[in-house]
């Protein structure tokens, strides 16, 4: 079955393209659409931003460098060339950028055009903050951004539901050498994983996509979870929310906002909108990075990973899921089906703090997640987890023990911070030194105390 998608309004069928080819290479080299730029090939600069839309979804911006061509199956794709033909009037987004003097060298401009084009269709309230969020995945080295933000504000945003054409999707694509499976049902997914235990399981591909974009390595066999119905569901009952493993961050955000605002705030800092439109909590968990942002939160919130294999389903507590650097308890024939997040009770204090060099689109140096219960001024329970402090995201039992049973005071917080030296011996790398990681992790307990005991006091620089 070919890969079928609409590209700038034209239906395309591809039969011969390697399933390991990135959408960026495809656009530039195969289709000659050079308006989509390569600035980094790692999803961090946004110069390759395009929009995609599935039959049921909204227009969303993604990084073409991190997507594989078969991931376009069934999509309507728009590149900067699709907004306005050469020698015709500019698209309003392009015109707004010109009117605001928002392009200097112009290399990043097509990416900003596409990110803002998507922004104009979300219907979100138009503020500098929402524009920042919309373009957090786009770097410009010339302008200093002010005119770009002004252009975004001048454009505004209206929720316009454009109905894209329904395009038949295939569940299998091959160019003869490599296979790309895109099952629709959970049972098919499980069966495929058993048959091809060595295949790459691809969710959003925002991490795995680097294999193609940067390492230039073929995948051989890929099993995509993107179209599996069961994995795309969000189910909520009284006690918990069950996120299918293929639910992307953008879809998870509104519900996280309701149940754990601090978690949601953190998710808004994962990658960029381009990344969150593809990336999934399931992928963030399964790649088992020690600095994945969601894992410490899930551990602190006592989330449960629901795995499925040929022998059925099993529940794995989040803190038992990671075994070593980039290793999990999943066996070769298992997949992650869902993540069950208990809804925090009203008396549970939950906070997550991320420390990185840049606020947006940066990988954490340290991430701390805290779930506390305080009764009559005394800490009665504490579940604390950190990322960036060890080979895996992990709980901090000594820190928690130093808090439990103690009055929730600054002294207790300091003692809890000090106890972290028993829990972790972090490493030095280019994100932070061992010393800094240790100090800042300990100090986050003091921030937690301030944050949970003093109303109306700004505890983070971004609050000013």
């Amino acid at each position: 079955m070919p890969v079928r998608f609409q590209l700038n309004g034209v239906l395309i069928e591809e039969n011969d393209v390697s399933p390991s080819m990135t959408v960026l290479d495809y656009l530039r080299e195969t289709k000659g659409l050079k308006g989509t730029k390569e600035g980094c090939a790692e999803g961090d600069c946004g110069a390759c931003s395009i929009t995609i839309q599935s039959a049921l979804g909204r227009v969303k911006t993604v990084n073409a460098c991190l997507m594989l061509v078969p991931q376009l199956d069934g999509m309507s794709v728009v590149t900067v060339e699709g907004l306005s033909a050469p020698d015709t009037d500019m698209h309003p987004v392009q015109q707004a950028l010109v009117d605001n003097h928002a392009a200097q060298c112009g290399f990043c401009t097509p990416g900003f055009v596409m990110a803002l084009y998507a922004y104009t269709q979300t219907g979100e309230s138009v503020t500098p903050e929402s524009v920042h969020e919309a373009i957090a995945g786009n770097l410009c080295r010339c302008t200093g951004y002010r005119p770009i933000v002004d252009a975004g504000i001048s454009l505004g945003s209206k929720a316009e539901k454009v109905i894209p054409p329904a395009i038949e999707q295939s569940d299998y694509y091959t160019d003869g050498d490599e296979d790309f499976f895109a099952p629709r049902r959970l049972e098919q997914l499980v069966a495929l994983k058993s048959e091809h235990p060595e295949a790459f399981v691809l969710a959003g591909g925002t991490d795995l996509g680097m294999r193609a974009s940067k390492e230039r390595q073929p995948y051989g066999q890929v099993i995509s979870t993107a179209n599996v119905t069961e994995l795309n569901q969000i189910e909520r009952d009284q006690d918990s929310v069950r996120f299918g493993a293929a639910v992307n961050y953008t879809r998870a955000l509104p519900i996280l906002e309701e149940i754990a605002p601090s978690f949601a705030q953190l998710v808004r800092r994962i990658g960029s909108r381009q990344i969150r439109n593809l990336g999934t909590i399931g992928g963030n968990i399964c790649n088992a990075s020690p600095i994945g942002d969601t894992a410490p939160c899930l551990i602190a919130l006592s989330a449960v990973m629901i795995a499925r294999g040929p022998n059925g389903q099993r529940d794995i507590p989040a803190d038992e899921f990671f075994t070593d650097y980039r290793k999990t308890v999943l066996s070769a024939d298992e997949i992650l089906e869902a993540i069950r997040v208990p809804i925090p009770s009203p008396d549970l204090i939950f906070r997550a703090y991320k420390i990185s060099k840049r606020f947006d689109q940066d990988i954490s140096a340290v991430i701390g997640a805290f779930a506390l219960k305080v009764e009559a001024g005394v800490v009665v329970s504490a579940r604390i987890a950190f990322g960036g402090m060890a080979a895996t995201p992990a709980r901090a039992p000594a820190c928690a023990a130093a808090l439990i049973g103690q009055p929730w005071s600054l002294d207790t917080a300091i003692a809890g911070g000090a106890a972290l030296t028993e829990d972790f011996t972090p490493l030095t790398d280019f994100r932070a030194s061992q010393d800094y990681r240790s100090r800042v992790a300990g100090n986050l307990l003091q921030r937690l105390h301030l944050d949970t005991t003093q109303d109306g006091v700004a505890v983070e620089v971004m609050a000013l």
Partner: protein
Amino acid sequence: MLTPKIQSIDVSAARDLPGVHAVLIAGDVPGRNDVAPIFEGEPILAEGLVEYVGHPVAAIAAETMDIARAAAALVVVEYLALDPVLSIDEALRRKSFTSPPQIMRRGNSIQGIADARHQISGEVRCGGQDHFYLETHIALAVPQEDRDMLVYSSTQHPTEVQHGVATVLGVPVNAVTTEIRRMGGGFGGKESQSTIIAALAALLAAQARRPVKLRLSRDDDMVITGKRHDFLFRYQAGFDDNGRIEGIDILMASRAGNVADLSSSVLIRALCHADNAYYLPNAHIHGYPCKTNTVSNTGFRGFGGPQGMVAIETVIDHIARTLGKDPDDVRRANFYDEADRDTTHYGQKVEDNIIAEMVDRLSQEIDYPARKQAVAAFNRDNTVLKKGIALMPVKFGISFNLPTLNQAGALVHVYTDGSVHLNHGGTEMGQGLYIKVAQVVASTFQIDIDQVKISSTNTAKVPNTSATAASSGSDLNGMAAHDAANQIKTRMAGVAADHFEVDEGEIEFRNNRIYARNDSISFAELAQLTWENRVSLSATGFYSTPKISWDDDTMTGRPFYYFSYGACVSEVVIDTLTGENRVLRTDILQDCGRSLNPAIDLGQIEGAFVQGMGWLTMEELWWDDKGALRTHGPSTYKIPGSRDVPPEFNVHILEDAPNREPTIFRSKAIGEPPLMLALSVWLALRDAVASVGEQRCVPNLDTPATAEAVLMAVDEARAQSRGG
């Protein structure tokens, strides 16, 4: 495993891979394997010695990028490990330099320091910076007939590319043509470095006898090409009760990297900006370009100037905090002034000084004293978040330090339909040079700007050009184009005078027409008439900057035609628990002379400020203990994003301030000067850090002031205070 000697290199497997068309190692270079811009001995492919991790040893051309990359992986190199120098400190210890130390001396610094009422000494470091132009280096080499080569290069310096390509191919310069329409950002990173990429493409094209395009991946670009020099400064100063400097000694040691490249020029500009806006009576400023086994550093917007200012601003801040004075009072006490305090430590008289007026104006407009009080009040009320505020004055010298480079050419044709073709030696990298020069030509002829066709920079049209660098693009090329257009205009005016039978003095070019008393014809009609009269409608223009001079032996002279001035106040907040920090507000007043294009100048000011802010705060180049750069992509090397820009960001261009020198329409250069205004952010961070200590706490904050650096400085300030 480092700074290894090549024992053997085997490219046979790479050569045999299907789809590979050319494989090149140092021995295959037909000409000279050397692209040094100033000195000699800077091979494009490592020859014998591999001097840094990432030093290219071979180049491959293949049908596709992926085949070329696969072939590159098949090259087998055996190395013999030697003992590398990986830090400035180590190079200083070993006296390992890429060119001789450079020393500026005035008066007697030792005496001046010793005789002063107060003395301080200290050390500070500033980090390097990757240019992170969004478009990486790229070149397309197309073999021509004979052994000629046409190279499309993303370069700020087409002439140097032309020379470099001719050198490696072993052909005369006239056999090579370089063309460049625009770059996706340059910032100094494509001044000398593009020659490496262009020369490799040309060598491969010559070998393969086919066009070759070489585009670096982001990682390769960051690993292989040079960056802003990081510096180590050691200073001693003596000063009076008002903080006025009486003697100063500053050691400036830069990381030149494995070869000299432009390091000696960068260093001299650092030395020339050791004063910023301050008079240094007894000064000893000595610079050392340290040879290290890391990538060779190069020009970057400001070209040493920003680094030099880090040193002097540290001194000023240190003096103020030692005396318990407001740093702005100490700044004012040291500003260049009338009469006996108007000459720089390199002997140039500061004739156009407006720094005090600019600072006053900005202070008044933003009610600076009240803002300081508000910051102090905030700090009294808050224990964890602390604010800081600081003012940065900037005086920046305009002209290439080396007088020779201050020349430019242009070529203008008027066609018989009145349309104009414009070419000049400057390159466009997003800074708006092309449109500014086109404005000059349109204005000279008094025609609409869309009548002027701006054409690609091309070494066959305008030869022997200087780099588009040192903020000089519009100063030099604007004047050259003005000269060319004026020559044609004069000839056309003569034709018009004959036609209307009036004196030439009565001919007026206005609104696309040429007027003579009550008669007029269109510019196009006059162009046709000029042709019919067999008068040339084409001219080359030339400009060389007047008044400048430099004596390399005494390190004195007038290197700068004029100075550009600016003032900036930034307010920041830091988190004393995490070191996280943020700029809350920035106000800028920038001198542009009589701006050629305020919209473009505004874009330059804002962009330069944000870039400078990135250099000083979040952009961290991190090498591991083996000398490998580990931050070589945007996932690990963080440049500012839109949210990092000050939420309140007020930029004003100084009005009614024509350049006192007759520059092009009395404008001033704008490319680099505003970058240094970002030092206000770092100074404000120092101010915030100092607030956690006792009064007279001198913060110890190097750049980049990352969250980590700020937290460490906060902890140290607290410890200092506790320790007394």
